[in-house]
Every structure is written in structure tokens, then in C-alpha cells.
């Protein structure tokens, strides 16, 4: 019998910053010393969601949308203005130390490794930080470095490692103390395709085999598709989307792009749906499957001439999400938050 | 380019080359003063030193009229002047030049139509002169409030003092210039600066040379260290016309000698760079 406990529970979370107004001109600057003017910046508005243990979640949003603020609240780095956040049963602000034993973090910007030393030194140090029993710790280092393909690199100074190697070490470091929940910020940024695949596979496997909950932020939707099974979209501080990746893909499947190439120039003026782009012997047609049926479109294209090649693609996830950002205005997000 | 004062006399073509060095100097000064908080910090440190040592000498002189031939007033002003020279020059010359050599920036400027050592001289001495203003003011105020108003005893005194300070600055520059040349051969050359700084401190900054055993004096004077802070500080507090010639001549001799050495070492170093490539 398994009872899934929520790994993360967030209810009506809000965070407002008071930012001191920069004064221009001497008299204003003097005045602001005595009585500073603040303006409020609402970074997170009334956000609510829950994450089950073992889930793999992507946290998406344009820059400045409130992603980092939310993560900082969840990891205990920031105190919320109002609302409730609970991570693995802990209040991140009150129990930050106890929470940090059971969560792992791999933030692209902040490294946990000592730059001038071989990675093994940093890994050993982390064992002391997380109070892992030395023999067990050595075993884990061996296990992780083998799984992540880092065995020969343990004695290489971190500054000499390639970016991909360094990130693999950061990930291994974040897993050493066997956390139940892993926060990842842009884990594949700057990496080439081969290394990206490696890292996505490692993360997906770790989530599957060890039931480690993954909380991922990334601008790379390839990461999202390969690693995560659910996506949260935040924009202007409000949650505007909370869907499984499958559902998102189905949404993307509602708009298809049909590209057809003919053996010889044809006349396409009589098509059921006018092409978006057309040439003498080729055409690109955007199809909204809610309005037109693909079989109809394909038949009408085949009827126009001898088809040399045809491709039918779903709308890329990236475009879908970019559209959502674009079309969901500030007013809409505020209206949503007001419910 | 805006007209410079030098342009008023530079109708003569032979002064034209000087223009670029004057410009280099004024640019460097503007740069230096852009970091006003930095300068304020230095002035604070100078003032602190003057405060501590003024008190130190006052306590040291308890019950004594003279030490090594100096009375309390003289020794305190001695310190104010010697530290003034050192603080004005700072160690920026060494730091900047070493960095330029290590990054290969020097190789870059070698292709330009001016003498790198002269440019460096113009920049660093101009900065030092500009910094002397606030330091001298602070030092003079602190000294005068404690010991009474100080001023040169005659026009000759003022002239000799000014010349000696200028020579001291140039000599300090040359020392740092030569030391920074070590960067052509050694990556880690800060140790050379430290040794130089300590030798300079010990030989004539805190205490005049008269405080050392008489046998040491000739040896100190065989190094540039006897001619850095001692001459201007000595002239400030104990002006004797007989000494003026000796002190100024000694400083000048060392300036010329080190200048020749500096150009030789610089040539050798830049040849090395040209061969090895930045």
C-alpha cells in the first residue's frame, strides 16, 4: 500500500518586494536619503500548486516571470509575503537546515564545486556538510561517478573540466546525500546536443529508479519534453498553466503544418485550405484540426498533382508556449489571480 | 583636440612631441580622480599614520630634547613629508606596469609612436603630483595644529624642497618601473615590490638616516634608498645650504643612473616579448 505524500504544497503564495526608488538629481537624492521612496514589485501573485513525490515537473516562464523567486521561497532563501509553502513536510523558512538535508540543488549560476581543486575534494567535502557516514559516502561517490561516466575525471581540477563534465559533477554532487527532491535550474545551458542527451537521460533515469522528485526550470523545451511529465507556466507572477506534458503535446497537435513537394509545377489555387506559403511546385499549409480534417487536406493535395514528398508536423512545443506567453496579457494574469 | 596650455608655447615644432605626454599625464590624472572614494580612503590612511606617529614621537621624546640630532618638531614634520612622498606615488606604477607586461598590453603599445617609459613616467608622476595636493594639505594642517605653523624659511628653501620632492617622485617611479620589468621574466613578481617597499620604509621613511649606526650610512647611500624620502624630508626640517647641493646632486645622479638602466632593461624585455609573442 503506498500513500503518495505531496512533496511540495503551495497555497496562495505571494511575494512583493520593496525596491528603493533611484533618485535623479542632487536634491532628489538628498531627499531620498532622509525619506526613501519605495515602489512595490509583485514578483509572485497568489500561486497555488502541489507536486507529488516522485513527480518530474518543469517550471516554465519568461525571464522576470517569478520563477527564481518561487524557487528561492521553496528552498528557504526568501520569505514569502503571504501564503503557505510546504516542502517535504517542512516550512522552508523555519526549518531550512532540516529541509536542506533532504533536498538537492543544482543551480547553473552557483557552483558547489571548488574551482581550483579536483572534483573529488569537493565531493568529499560535501559528505562532511551533509553528514554522510564516510564509508557509505565513498561508496556513493563511486556509484554516482560510475553512473555519470566521471570515473577518470575525479582527480582533474574543476577549472580544467569541460562544461559538460563540470555539470555532470554538479549533478552528482547534488545527489550525494540522496535527496528526495532535486531543484534544477538550467541544467543543460551551454551544452552541445550529445551532452544534453546524456544529462537528460541521467536525470530521467534517476527520477525513475530512485523516485527523486525533480523540479526543473529550463528555457530548453527539449529538456522539458525529455525529462518532465508535467509543466507549470508562470507569467507576470501568476500561474497560467498547469498541464501534463502529454496534454500540452495534444494541444500542440491541434495545429499541424503540412509541407508538400510535387514532381512538377502544379496549380494549387483550388485547394480546400489556401497555403500559408506556396511556390511553383511546393506548398506549406497550416491546419487547425478543429476546423479541417487532415485526411481531407491530404486528399485535396494529392488530387492537385503527383506528390513527391509530404510531411505533417505538430506545432513545436516552443511555439505553443511562446504563444501562450504572448497572448496571456498582464490583465488576464491579474484577473486569474483575483479569482 | 582642445587647446592645451602647452599649445601656447608650442608654436615651436620641437615641443610638439611633448604634447602627447602632457595629454597622457592629464588623462591619467582624470582617471585616478574618478575613484574619489579610493582617494579618500588613502587620505584617511595617511592621516591615521600621521596621527599615530605624531603621538609616538611625542611619547618617545618625553624628557629628551634631541634624538639623533632632531628635536620633536623636526622629527614629526620629517615623518609628514616622507610619508607624503610615498603616499603620493603609491604602488600603482608597479601594479599597472606588471599587469600590462603580463597581459601583453605592452607589446601593443610598442607599435605606437611614443616612448613607453616616457609615457609611463608622464602618467605616474602626474598622478603623484595631483595627489600630493590633498595629502600635503592634510599633513600640513595636522602638523600645524599640533606643532605650530610650518613654512619654508626662504625662497631657496622652498625651491630646494620642491626640486627634491620632484626628484624623489621620479626616483620612486624608476624603482617601481625597474621592478615591474621583472614581469618580463617572472610571472609572480610581487615579492620584488614587497622587498623594495620594506627597504624604502626602513631606510629613511619612519626615521632619518641619522638614527642608524654611522657605519651603515655609506652603504645605504650606495643604494637608491638613501635618496628617496630622506632628502626632501631632511631639507624640509633642517635646511642647510651646504647640504642642498649634496642631496640634490645625489638624487639627480641616481635618477640618471636608474633611467639609463631602465631603458636598457626595457629594451631587453621588449625584445624578449617580440621574440616570444606577448
Amino acid at each position, binding site marked *: 500500500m503506498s500513500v503518495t505524500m505531496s512533496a511540495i504544497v503551495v497555497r496562495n503564495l505571494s511575494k512583493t518586494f520593496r525596491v528603493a526608488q533611484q533618485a535623479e538629481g542632487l536634491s532628489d537624492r538628498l531627499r531620498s536619503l532622509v525619506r526613501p521612496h519605495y515602489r512595490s514589485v509583485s514578483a509572485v501573485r497568489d500561486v497555488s500548486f502541489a507536486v507529488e513525490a516522485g513527480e518530474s515537473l518543469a517550471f516554465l516562464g519568461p525571464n522576470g516571470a517569478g520563477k527564481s523567486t518561487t524557487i528561492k521561497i521553496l528552498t528557504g532563501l526568501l520569505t514569502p509575503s503571504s501564503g503557505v509553502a510546504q516542502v517535504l513536510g517542512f516550512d522552508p523558512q523555519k526549518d531550512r537546515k532540516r529541509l536542506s538535508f533532504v533536498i538537492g540543488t543544482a543551480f547553473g549560476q552557483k557552483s558547489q564545486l571548488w574551482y581550483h581543486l579536483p572534483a573529488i575534494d569537493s565531493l568529499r567535502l560535501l559528505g562532511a*556538510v551533509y553528514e554522510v557516514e564516510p564509508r557509505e559516502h565513498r561508496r556513493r561517490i563511486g556509484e554516482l561517478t560510475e553512473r555519470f561516466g566521471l570515473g577518470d575525471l575525479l582527480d582533474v581540477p574543476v577549472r580544467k573540466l569541460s562544461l559538460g563534465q563540470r555539470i555532470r559533477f554538479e549533478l552528482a554532487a547534488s545527489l550525494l546525500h540522496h535527496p528526495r527532491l532535486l531543484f534544477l535550474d538550467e541544467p543543460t545551458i551551454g551544452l552541445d546536443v550529445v551532452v544534453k542527451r546524456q544529462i537528460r537521460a541521467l536525470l530521467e533515469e534517476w527520477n525513475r529508479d530512485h523516485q527523486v522528485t525533480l523540479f526543473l526550470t529550463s528555457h530548453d523545451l527539449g529538456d522539458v519534453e525529455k525529462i518532465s511529465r508535467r509543466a507549470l507556466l508562470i507569467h507576470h507572477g501568476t500561474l497560467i498553466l498547469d498541464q501534463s506534458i502529454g496534454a500540452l503535446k495534444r494541444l500542440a497537435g491541434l495545429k499541424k503544418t503540412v509541407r508538400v513537394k510535387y514532381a512538377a509545377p502544379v496549380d494549387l489555387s483550388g485547394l480546400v485550405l489556401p497555403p500559408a506559403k506556396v511556390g511553383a511546385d511546393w506548398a506549406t499549409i497550416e491546419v487547425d484540426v478543429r476546423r479541417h480534417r487532415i485526411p481531407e487536406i491530404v486528399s485535396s493535395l494529392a488530387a492537385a498533382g503527383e506528390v513527391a514528398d509530404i510531411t505533417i508536423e505538430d506545432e513545436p512545443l516552443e511555439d505553443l508556449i511562446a504563444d501562450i506567453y504572448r497572448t496571456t496579457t498582464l490583465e488576464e494574469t491579474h484577473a486569474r489571480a483575483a479569482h | 583636440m582642445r587647446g592645451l596650455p602647452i599649445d601656447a608655447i608650442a608654436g615651436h615644432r620641437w615641443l610638439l612631441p611633448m604634447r602627447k605626454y602632457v595629454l597622457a599625464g592629464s588623462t591619467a590624472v582624470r582617471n585616478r580622480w574618478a575613484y574619489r572614494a579610493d582617494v579618500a580612503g588613502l587620505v584617511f590612511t595617511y592621516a*591615521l599614520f600621521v596621527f599615530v606617529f605624531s603621538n609616538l614621537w611625542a611619547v618617545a621624546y618625553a624628557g629628551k630634547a634631541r634624538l639623533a640630532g632632531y628635536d620633536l618638531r623636526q622629527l614629526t614634520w620629517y615623518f609628514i613629508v616622507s610619508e607624503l612622498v610615498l603616499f603620493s606615488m603609491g604602488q600603482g606604477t608597479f601594479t599597472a606596469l606588471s599587469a600590462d607586461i603580463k597581459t601583453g598590453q605592452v607589446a601593443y603599445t610598442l607599435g605606437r609612436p611614443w616612448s613607453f617609459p616616457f609615457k609611463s613616467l608622464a602618467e605616474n608622476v602626474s598622478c603623484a603630483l595631483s595627489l600630493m595636493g590633498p595629502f600635503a594639505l592634510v599633513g600640513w594642517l595636522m602638523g600645524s595644529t599640533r606643532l605650530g605653523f610650518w613654512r619654508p624659511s626662504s625662497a631657496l628653501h622652498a625651491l630646494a624642497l620642491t626640486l627634491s620632492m620632484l626628484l624623489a617622485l621620479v626616483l620612486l617611479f624608476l624603482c617601481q618601473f625597474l621592478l615591474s620589468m621583472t614581469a618580463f621574466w617572472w610571472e609572480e613578481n610581487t615579492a620584488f615590490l614587497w622587498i623594495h617597499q620594506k627597504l624604502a620604509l626602513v631606510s629613511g621613511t619612519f626615521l632619518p638616516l641619522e638614527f642608524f649606526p654611522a657605519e651603515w650610512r655609506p652603504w645605504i647611500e650606495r643604494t637608491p634608498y638613501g635618496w628617496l624620502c630622506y632628502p626632501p624630508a631632511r631639507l624640509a626640517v633642517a635646511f642647510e645650504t651646504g647640504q642642498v647641493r649634496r642631496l640634490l646632486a645625489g638624487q639627480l645622479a641616481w635618477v640618471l643612473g636608474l633611467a639609463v638602466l631602465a631603458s636598457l632593461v626595457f629594451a631587453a624585455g621588449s625584445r624578449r616579448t617580440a621574440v616570444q609573442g606577448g
Partner: protein
Amino acid sequence: MKAYTRLLVEVFRANLAAVFAYRIPSLVQVFGMVLNNASFLVFWAALLRHTGTVGGWGLRDVLYLWALGPSAFGLAHILFGNARQLGTLIVQGDLDVYLLQPKDPQFHALISRTVPAAWGDFFYGFVLLPFITHDPLRMGLFAIFTVTGALVFVGFFSLVQSLAFWLGNISGLASAVTELMLSFTLYPEPVFPQPMRWVFYSLIPAGFLAFLPIHVLRTLDWVWLPVTMAAALALLVLSAAVFRLGLRRYESGNAQGGRI
């Protein structure tokens, strides 16, 4: 406690490894510091040759100053090398790494660095000691005062650096404070006018670092030993409290520098 000892040992090992990775530059710094301290002794020897004593302090007393000051300063920066970097860490957001880990962030941040030059200071002090005294009691006291002095340095510097939580970039203030602290610990107490000496036991606690210990070393006036230890402890507690307050402000996100 055991966990923190293990942490200190492991971090220190990493610090040593980092210094060793750049051994030539580190050695140069050690050497430079020794030279620096030695040159001041040359000055004092030359001066005392003419005056005998300064305010009642003779060569042995000055040597005590120049042994205790450097060894305490050295020990402080050997073990707590980030004592004067805390402000920079705060302003640049580098504190987050320590906040995300299950150890006290102030302690962890402080010990995560060792300053090579500080080793020069530390050794210098202890090498000088046998030239001052052979009395085992005084040598023991010297060792104790080195520890209390180091704690005073660490407590005081990290307290000043914690002001960065409220004031942002405090590098100017911090260097001024360092200069003052060093000046007041390296010159005999009689040098400073009587009316200002209260400063050394409050705003710039150099008195607990140098003057009180040297008084005990000269006269064996025991009562001041526990006072010195209490002062060191008080400074540490105060600095921890200030840091914790500052951290709360950091966590509100409203700290100077506006990290959002």
C-alpha cells in the same frame, strides 16, 4: 558538534589543497608578510637604541606587540579566511551556496578560505616568541592570547562585514576599520592619548587583543585573563547575532542591491 568538527577538518583540508595548488604564489605571500613584520622591528630597534624606552615600553614589550598581533591576526585568517570577505559574499549573492546547505551559513562561509599571507604572520609571531621569553608560563599565556586575539579579530571583522546586509558595498568602511584595528594593536598603548583609550575597549576592540594581554604578560595580573576571554566570547556572540539579523533582511529580499 562532531559534525561541525568534521566540517572544519574537511574544509581546512580543502583550503590547504587550494593553497598547495598555487604553492609558489602562496610562499611568496608568506615570505612577504614575514619581511613586512621584520622591517618594522628594524625600525623599533633603531628608535629604541636612541630612546631606551617609549612611554615605559622597552624592546621586549614592543616585541610582545609584534609577536602577539601578527600571530593572532594570522590565526584568525588561517582558520577563518573569509572574515574580511563576508561583505563581498553578501553583496554578490554568494551566500546562497551556504544557505542551501545544512550548516550554519556564517561559520561555513567564514572557514571556507585560508589566506596564505596569514601563515607568514602566524609563524612570525611564534618564531619571535623564544627571543622574548623562555618562561613556559608566559609562553602558555601567549598561546592562549593568540587564540583569544584571533577570536576578537574574527568576531569584530565579521560584525563589521555583516553591515553589508544593510549598507551594501562597505569595502571603504571595512578597510578603514582594518587600518584602525591594526594601528591600535601594533603600537604601544602609551602612544595613544589617555582620553581616547576607551575606544580600544568598545568601538575598535584592539585593547582586548593587545593591551590587556600584554599587561598580563608583563605583570601576571591574572584578573584580566578571564576578562579577555569573556570579551572575545562576547564579540563572537554579538557578531553571530548581527549576522542572523542581517540574514533575516537578506531573506526578505529587500537587502541593499535588490536581488530579486
